[in-house]
């Protein structure tokens, strides 16, 4: 399975990467860890003329606390996120989610920026990014701008990133321990059939859901139904709204009905687990 031929560019800086995107336009594709793009290229679903490898831009790989938030460079690997003491301490939902992605080898190579930009409807991070109300910073020809998680996922494999932009940083808030990510996975690939991220904070509850629909979404029906009540009964009742208003996907792994059911079950479990960690 050889991909079609391409020209390979390896910019050393974000500015160089932006310039390459500007120069090659639609003909170019960004390569991060490669675990989304390379499989697509092998199947020739993607045949970029130019591949811009940003995986080695060292200034995009970090995890640090800044301005009361946690900032993560786009080229930080899933493994680095899963193992980060700082994140385990201050935003444990992110490392918990990262540790669920694929397998060791995939986590050693895949990056958070690459995963988010690909926007696979069954990826794990999107649920968590939504539940954390994260910010995604992108760089383009006009400098940097920030996209809120709620505006980021547009449709199946489509995000609010423009063709001439790349993700530089993901910012998440400091949270309490009352968070959880629960998923049912497709056994062979590890992708989510239904992944639910829950964040319980003094300002309210946020629930993100992935794997169910063409794009990850906030389960606002669940959030509203809870009205701040976190009893077992309230949670069970609220969780029945986990797939309200969405059109669940259907494929050989799970029917739409089954996916909607899993969304409800995992929402209940994620909320229960988050409460139990308080």
């Amino acid at each position, binding site marked *: *399975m*050889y*991909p*079609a*031929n*391409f*020209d*390979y560019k*390896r910019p050393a800086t974000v500015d160089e990467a932006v310039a390459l995107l500007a120069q090659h336009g639609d003909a170019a594709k960004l*390569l991060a860890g*490669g*675990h989304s793009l*390379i*499989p697509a*290229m*092998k199947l020739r679903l993607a045949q970029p003329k130019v*591949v811009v*490898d940003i*995986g*080695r831009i060292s200034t995009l790989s970090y995890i640090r606390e800044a301005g009361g938030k946690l900032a993560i460079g786009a080229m930080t690997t899933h*493994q680095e996120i899963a193992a980060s003491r700082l994140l385990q301490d201050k935003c444990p939902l992110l490392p918990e989610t990262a540790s669920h992605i*694929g*397998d*060791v*080898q*995939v986590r*050693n*190579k895949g990056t958070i920026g690459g995963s988010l930009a690909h926007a696979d409807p069954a990826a794990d991070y999107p649920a968590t990014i939504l539940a954390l109300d994260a910010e995604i910073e992108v760089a383009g020809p006009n400098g940097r701008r920030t996209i809120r998680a709620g505006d980021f996922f547009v449709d199946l494999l489509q995000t609010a990133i423009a063709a001439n932009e790349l993700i530089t940083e993901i910012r998440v808030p400091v949270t309490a321990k009352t968070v959880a990510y629960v998923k049912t996975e497709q056994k*062979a*690939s*590890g992708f989510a059939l239904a992944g639910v991220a829950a964040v319980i904070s003094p300002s309210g509850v946020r629930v993100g859901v992935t794997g169910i629909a063409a794009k990850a979404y906030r389960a606002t029906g669940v959030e509203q139904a809870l009205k701040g009540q976190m009893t077992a009964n309230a949670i069970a009742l609220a969780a029945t709204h986990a797939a309200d208003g969405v059109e669940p996907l259907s494929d050989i792994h799970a029917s739409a009905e089954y996916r909607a059911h899993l969304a409800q079950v995992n929402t209940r479990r994620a909320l229960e687990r988050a409460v139990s960690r308080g």
Partner: protein
Amino acid sequence: MPIPVRLRVNNTPREHTIEPRVLLVHYLRDHCNLTGTHVGCETGICGACTVLVDGKAVKSCTVFAVQADGSDVTTIEGLATNGHLHPVQQGFWDRHGLQCGYCTPGMIMASVHLLATGAAGSREAIAEGLRGNLCRCTGYSHIIDAVQNAQQAANAEVARA
């Protein structure tokens, strides 16, 4: 357009001019003639192609060789020293961690990484650590035995030192 790649494979510097689309696994097999690294699924699922790049286990069918430019790559051929099997290889030998052997190079490289990262603390942890490696023959139990065996050997080594 072919471009130069320079990397160290099992401590030997290598330099080739290759098409950027060449996957690391094909680079190792076809350009370096190191056929110990196997190709199973070629879709990133089975782990037969696992090698270490700068000490980290990766699936070499899902990495372009040019991405590893400048890196240190370790394959199954690079484990034994002076005719002595690596403790993980010895563990697979002693505990019958293989049958047909197709998955074995990848299993062993993933296990080496697992032991190096200290993530092999229990049978469950080893099973989780090797979930990216599929085996059609053994039923996995002997593979876990083999990794535990290697770990005990390594611990005994440390105790002796």
